C-alpha cells in the first residue's frame, strides 16, 4: 500500500497511544470490564438461580403417613416451604392468584388407601408460572421428590408396589405462562448486548473526544492519515470486545452452568463480523456527533432498538411485523441467533453462515455511509 496513505509505523503509534490512554482512563476501563460483569450477574441471577424455599400451600384431604411423608420430603428438598394448610379449592385459587404462594399441592381423599391398593392416586402441583424461571427448578424436581419419599415409605411394607410403575400419578400444572422460555437463551444473548453497548459507544466517544479536546486539529496537521487514526483507535476496542466475550463465556460456563454445545472458538471467529459492524457504527456516529454527550445520545439511540427488537428482550416471533422488519436489519438480531445456535444447539459453521451475511451487509452499508461522511479537514 502507498506509504503516504498507510504507514504501519504511524498506525502502531496510534494503537500504542490509545492503549496508554485507555489504561489511564480508569473509569472507562472499569466500565468496560464492569458492564459485562454487572449484566451477567443481574441477568444471570434471574436465570439460573434456582430459587429455593418458595411459599407453598398444602390442600390435603388425606391424613395417612404417606401424605405426611410427601409433605415433609418437599420441605427437606428445600425447593418448597410449606407456609399453610388449606381446606378448599377456592382458597387455593385465591392464594395463587394473589401471589401469596407460588405453589399449591393437592393430595386427594383416601390417598394413602388408594396407594396401598395400587390404584395410583393422583397428586397435583399447581405452579404460578408467571415467572417461569422461578418455578422451573421446583416443578422439574417435584416428581422425583414425591417418588423418592414414597419409595422409602413403601419399601419393606409393600415392596412390590414400589417397584416397576410409579406408585402415584404426579401432575404438574403451570398456570399463567405454560410454555416457559428457556432461560439459557439469556446468557449467550448477553454477549451480543454487551458488545453492542460498549463497542458502539466507546468508539464513538474515543473519536469524538479527540475532536472535542482539540487534539484532532493537531493530529490532522501531522502526516498521519484518517485511515491510520481510525484503525488505530479501533484496534484496542476490538481487544476489549474479545475480553468482554471471554468474561461472559466464562460466567456462562462456570457461574451459571449453561451447557455449551458448540465450539466457543467458532463463536469468537464469527463474532469478528459482528464486532466490525458495531465498530463501523461507532465510527460513523462519531462523524455525526459534535461532542461526547451527543456521541452517547446517538449510541443509545442505536442501542435501544437493538436491545428491544433483536429478540433479546422479547421473543422475535411474538413481535409485530414492522418490529420484525426493523429487527432483521440489526446486526444484534443475527448475532443472537448465531450465538444461540452454536452454544445451545451445537451448530457448526455451515448452519451459522446464514446469520453471518446479513451482518456483513449491514457492515458494508455503514462503512459506505461513514466513508462518505468522513472528513479529512476540520470543516
Amino acid at each position, binding site marked *: 500500500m502507498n506509504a*503516504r496513505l498507510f*504507514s504501519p*509505523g*504511524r498506525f*502502531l*503509534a496510534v494503537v*500504542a*497511544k490509545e492503549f*496508554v*490512554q485507555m489504561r*489511564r*482512563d480508569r473509569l472507562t476501563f472499569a466500565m468496560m470490564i464492569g458492564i459485562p460483569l454487572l449484566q451477567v450477574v443481574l441477568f444471570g441471577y434471574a436465570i439460573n438461580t434456582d430459587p429455593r424455599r418458595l411459599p407453598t400451600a398444602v390442600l390435603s384431604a388425606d391424613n395417612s403417613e404417606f401424605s405426611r411423608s410427601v409433605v415433609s420430603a418437599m420441605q427437606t428438598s428445600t425447593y418448597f416451604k410449606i407456609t399453610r394448610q388449606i381446606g378448599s379449592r377456592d382458597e387455593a385459587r385465591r392464594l395463587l392468584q394473589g401471589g401469596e404462594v407460588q405453589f399449591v399441592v393437592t393430595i386427594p381423599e383416601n390417598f394413602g388407601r388408594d396407594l396401598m391398593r395400587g390404584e395410583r392416586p393422583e397428586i397435583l402441583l399447581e405452579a404460578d408460572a408467571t415467572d417461569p424461571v422461578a418455578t422451573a427448578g421446583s416443578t422439574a424436581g417435584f416428581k422425583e421428590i414425591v417418588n423418592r419419599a414414597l419409595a422409602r415409605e413403601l419399601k419393606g411394607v409393600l415392596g412390590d408396589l414400589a417397584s416397576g410403575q410409579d406408585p402415584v400419578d404426579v401432575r404438574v400444572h403451570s398456570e399463567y405462562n405454560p410454555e416457559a422460555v428457556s432461560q439459557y437463551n439469556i446468557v449467550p444473548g448477553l454477549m451480543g448486548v454487551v458488545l453492542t453497548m460498549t463497542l458502539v459507544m466507546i468508539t464513538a466517544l474515543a473519536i469524538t473526544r479527540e475532536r472535542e*479536546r*482539540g*487534539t484532532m*486539529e*493537531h493530529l*490532522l*496537521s*501531522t*502526516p*498521519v*492519515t484518517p485511515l491510520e487514526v481510525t484503525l488505530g483507535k479501533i484496534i484496542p476496542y476490538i481487544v476489549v470486545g474479545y475480553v468482554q466475550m471471554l468474561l461472559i463465556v466464562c460466567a456462562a460456563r462456570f457461574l451459571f452452568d449453561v451447557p455449551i454445545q458448540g465450539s466457543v472458538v467458532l463463536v469468537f471467529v464469527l463474532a469478528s463480523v459482528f464486532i466490525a459492524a458495531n465498530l463501523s457504527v461507532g465510527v460513523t456516529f462519531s462523524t455525526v456527533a459534535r461532542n461526547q454527550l451527543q456521541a452517547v445520545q446517538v449510541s443509545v439511540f442505536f442501542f435501544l432498538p437493538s436491545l428491544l427488537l433483536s429478540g433479546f428482550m422479547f421473543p422475535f416471533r411474538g413481535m409485530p411485523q414492522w418490529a420484525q422488519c426493523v429487527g432483521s436489519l440489526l446486526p444484534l438480531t443475527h448475532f443472537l441467533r448465531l450465538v444461540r445456535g452454536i452454544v445451545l444447539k451445537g451448530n457448526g459453521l455451515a448452519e451459522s453462515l446464514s446469520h453471518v451475511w446479513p451482518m456483513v451487509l449491514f457492515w458494508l452499508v455503514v462503512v459506505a455511509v461513514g466513508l462518505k461522511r468522513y472528513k479529512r*479537514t*476540520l*470543516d
Partner: protein
Amino acid sequence: MPGNDLVIDVRGLTKSFGRKTVVRDLDMQVRRGEIFGFLGPNGSGKTTSIRMLCGLLRPDSGAGLCLGYDIIAQSERIKPHVGYMTQRFSLYEDLTVLENLRFAARLYGLKSPEADVQGALERYGLTPFSRHLAGNLSGGWKQRLSLAECTLHRPRLLLLDEPTAGVDPGARRDFWDQVHGLAAEGVTALISTHYMDEAERCHRLAYIAYGDVLASGTAQDLVSGSGLFTWSVSAARPDADLHGLGEALKREPGVDQVVIFGNALHVSGLDESGLEAAVAAHRTEAFVWTRTGPGLEEAFINLMRGARLE
C-alpha cells in the same frame, strides 16, 4: 521545490462559514527565514487563515503554494514539513510529556526518535517534567511542550497560533530567542499574537480585521504608514490630574486616541493641526508635554477603527 524564496505564497484566499465570510481575499507572501507576525482583533480570521495554510480547512476560493506545494491539492506533502502549534493546547493531557513527544516522533517517522526527543526535552527545559502528565503542567509549560513538539521533526515552516498567550515574560523571551534561532537556521515562522512587543520582534507583519488584510510590512512601515501624530504627556506635579486631562482630551475634535501608559498619556490624531490646537488648549505647567512618534498599538487601533467605519 521551485527555485523561489517564498515559503508561503497565497492569493485571494476566501473562507466562509455559513453566510459569514471569515477570511476575504487574503494575499500573503512570506520569505524563507522570515518571522512573520499575524495580528488582528479577536475573531478576525487569523486561526482560520492558518488552518487553510496547513490543509486543515479548504478555502472556498483562492489558491497558493506553501513550501512550493499547492495548498489544496498537495496538502499531504506539506504536512511533514510544517509544525503547527494550535491556539488551544492540543496535545494529550492524559499522556506524559515524554509520551507526547514520542508519539509525535513516531507520527513523523523520525530516524532517531529517542535522541530527538531527548534533545527537545533539554532544549526546552522539559527534562524535569518528562514523566508528568501534560494536563498537569502549568499554562506556560504547556506552551513550551507544544513548541517542543511542533519543532521536533525540524519543520521548514512553523505556524504558531498565539504561542505565548499566558506565558510569563522570561519564558516569552526564551521563546522568542528560540524562534529567532530557528529562523537563523532557515526556518520560516508565521506567528499570530496580540502582544505589541512581540509584533515588534517580527521581521514583517500583517494586520487583518473582519476578514480583510488592512496593512502589512515591517513594524516601521506600519507605524509611519498610519499617518498618526502623537504627544506624550506626563504629570509635572504630584497633584496633577492625568486621568481628568485624558478625559478632556478625548472630547477634543482633533484627538483620535488617548492611551494611558502608567504615568504617561499618549495623545494621537490623524490631523496634525487639529491635534496641535487641542494640545495648545490644554497645555498647562502641571504636565510635561513632549512630541513622540506613534507606537504600533496606536497604529493598529487606528487601522481597526478605519475598518469599522467602512
